């Protein structure tokens, strides 16, 4: 335990930048829920296909502008697109791919939410769907720092059904390559969040954990931006975490809402990346945290970990936020922004 440093000094902390942000996938503003229900319909075949018509596109454009405004008004340090078109949640990038057939409605992890099973039936070549969304966002974001969001390759492969590659290893690699190609087409962005709940929910076995990290590494290598890999709904198994640290990423996310002890254990035993993402506000509960409580939770984490100084600490909700009613979602963003300010002030 000789590598445990004494409690950080305040001077050291001044180095840390606190960045308030979210893992994306916002709820639709309520008026858009109504408008898009009317325009698109309620059935499986009515969900986004990637080639929506003018009216639907216009509704999404307007909604995008609104959620970018909400983030700016809240004072978040990163602005994300909101992924409002992602009817199939994290499966979206495949659900709109030409060589993917969307089939039955399947449960989205352990939630009362469902998505269309994306069945991969051909090569996962370049799509550009997400890049287009980001282009539109970049225009609206102005001088604010842009954050891109994608499913991590392990989760995306886990959510899909492969009928083309025929081999799990090959399929995971193909999904990694596909995502890297998508990232390559992104406009300039400050941060890329790769959401990897499947690393917790359906943890990779021996060997697969290493390949999952390689696939993540491949996606991360396609951008110059800081890359945050955000697993959630618990803590990573320690071997999975150890392998993840081998990937060339800037931060790992920790869902401290769902699990404290195992996340602290991982940090204590295996250390951390130079940057850290802390999921401290509950993305699945309407109870709105106090900014001070979030700031205190940051201190709590610092107390527990043997690292005295991080370059950047992202403060986020633990999960996507589409689970929340829209007004509560807005409140949570404001809390995160304020908590990051409080942390900066305290540190200085």
């Amino acid at each position: 335990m000789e590598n445990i440093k004494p409690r950080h000094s305040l001077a050291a902390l001044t180095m840390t930048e606190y960045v308030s942000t979210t893992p994306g996938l916002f709820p639709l503003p309520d008026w858009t829920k109504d408008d898009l229900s009317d325009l698109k319909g309620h059935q499986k075949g009515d969900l986004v296909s990637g080639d929506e018509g003018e009216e639907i596109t216009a509704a999404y454009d307007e909604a995008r502008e609104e959620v970018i405004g909400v983030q700016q008004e809240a004072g978040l340090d990163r602005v994300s697109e909101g992924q409002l078109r992602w009817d199939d949640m994290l499966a979206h990038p495949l659900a709109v791919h030409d060589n993917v057939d969307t089939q039955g409605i399947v449960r989205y992890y352990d939630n009362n939410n469902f998505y269309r099973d994306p069945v991969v039936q051909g090569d996962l070549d370049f799509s550009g769907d997400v890049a287009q969304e980001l282009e539109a966002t970049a225009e609206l974001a102005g001088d604010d720092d842009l954050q891109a969001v994608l499913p991590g390759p392990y989760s995306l492969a886990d959510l899909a059904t492969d009928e083309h590659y025929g081999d799990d290893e090959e399929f995971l690699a193909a999904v990694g390559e596909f995502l890297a190609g998508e990232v390559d087409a992104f406009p300039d962005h400050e941060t890329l969040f790769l959401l990897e709940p499947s690393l917790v929910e359906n943890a990779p076995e021996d060997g697969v954990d290493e390949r999952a990290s390689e696939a993540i590494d491949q996606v991360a290598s396609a951008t110059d931006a800081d890359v945050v890999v955000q697993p959630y709904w618990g803590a990573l198994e320690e071997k999975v975490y150890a392998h993840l640290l081998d990937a060339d990423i800037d931060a790992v996310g920790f869902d401290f809402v769902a699990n404290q002890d195992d996340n602290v254990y991982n940090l204590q035993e295996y250390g951390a990346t130079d940057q850290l993402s802390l999921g401290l506000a509950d993305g699945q509960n309407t109870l709105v945290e106090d900014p001070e409580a979030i700031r205190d939770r940051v201190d709590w984490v610092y107390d527990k970990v043997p690292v005295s100084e991080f370059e950047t600490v992202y403060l986020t909700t633990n999960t996507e936020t589409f689970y929340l009613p829209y007004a509560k979602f807005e409140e949570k963003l404001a809390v995160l922004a304020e908590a990051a300010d409080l942390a900066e002030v305290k540190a200085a």
Partner: protein
Amino acid sequence: MSNENKDQFRPENHENDHFLLTTVVGSYPKPKWLNRAKELYQDPDHSFDDDDYQEALDDASRLITNEHERAGLDVVVDGEMRRNEMVEFFAHRIEGYEFNGPVKVWGHNYFDKPSVVSEVKYDESWLVDEYEFVAEASDRPVKVPITGPYTLANWSFNEAYDDDDELTLALADLVNEEIEKLVDAGARYIQIDEPALATTPDDHAIVGEALEHIVADIPEEVRIGLHVCYGDYSRIYPEILEFPVDEFDLELANGDYDQLDVFKDPEFTADLALGVTDVHVGEVESVEQIEENIKKGLEVVPPEQLVVSPDCGVKLLPREVAYGKMANMVEAARNVEAALDAGEIDVERGEPAPADD
């Protein structure tokens, strides 16, 4: 062999010796005019007022109760005409809940997922008025479906309780209070709906504990059913046999009975309310097809323990399709009863055939 609890619902003039109780899970398509009436009622510029809307709800309740009678069902429901959604309806009547707006379920399907913001308390009665109205409107026994406490807890945001189990048990006590009032009003057949159990099957223990709270001090002769649907039953069976209920109402037609063997070993000791028509298929199954489905139930329980019902609520079907399924279901049940009387049915019950390997 007799089954007193089930036989209390046997019609006096029942035509066969055998009795396969026919009923429904609960919800039924609302008449289009009721939706229109609701729109008028919600339109502030329209003179259609609360009394008018209540009258429309009464009419709809009578109409669908009557439609169930015409289909020949032994135990009827009013198709839940007064209820909007299975969690919202109750949350509006329980103190401690608040609503913050719609959340996504899938695609553009949303629901007003409520938040529990303080201790839940019993306030006004939830279903006594509905029950009394339907009982008055029909000569047949009436079943009362109630959303169970586990689903009420699980499909809400929990801001007030340390964990969802604690909330579930608090809600279970309220459900118990409501059932006592229903029993006082004359209800003899209560169905607890717990669809959330299918999403988190590992939680069967808390559902069982909640049921103990629910049935506390409820007289033995009151029939308590539990409805569970769309899940992996192997993860909750045989543990659910320990639950203090008379009947399990299960969806099995949708999966073409691929999970039937789950219930053969160990022996199914409760009554089985078997789903014999698929509510996610827009075509009415033939009487012959439903007869075959009913016989699947006889592989699990003897006729005395068998109840016949659709897989789940039928509210998403076109109304004429829903009616067709009810009517064919009843006809099929009567045919199977007659065949049982005549000794023409030879179904082997019990352990599943060994697998090929």
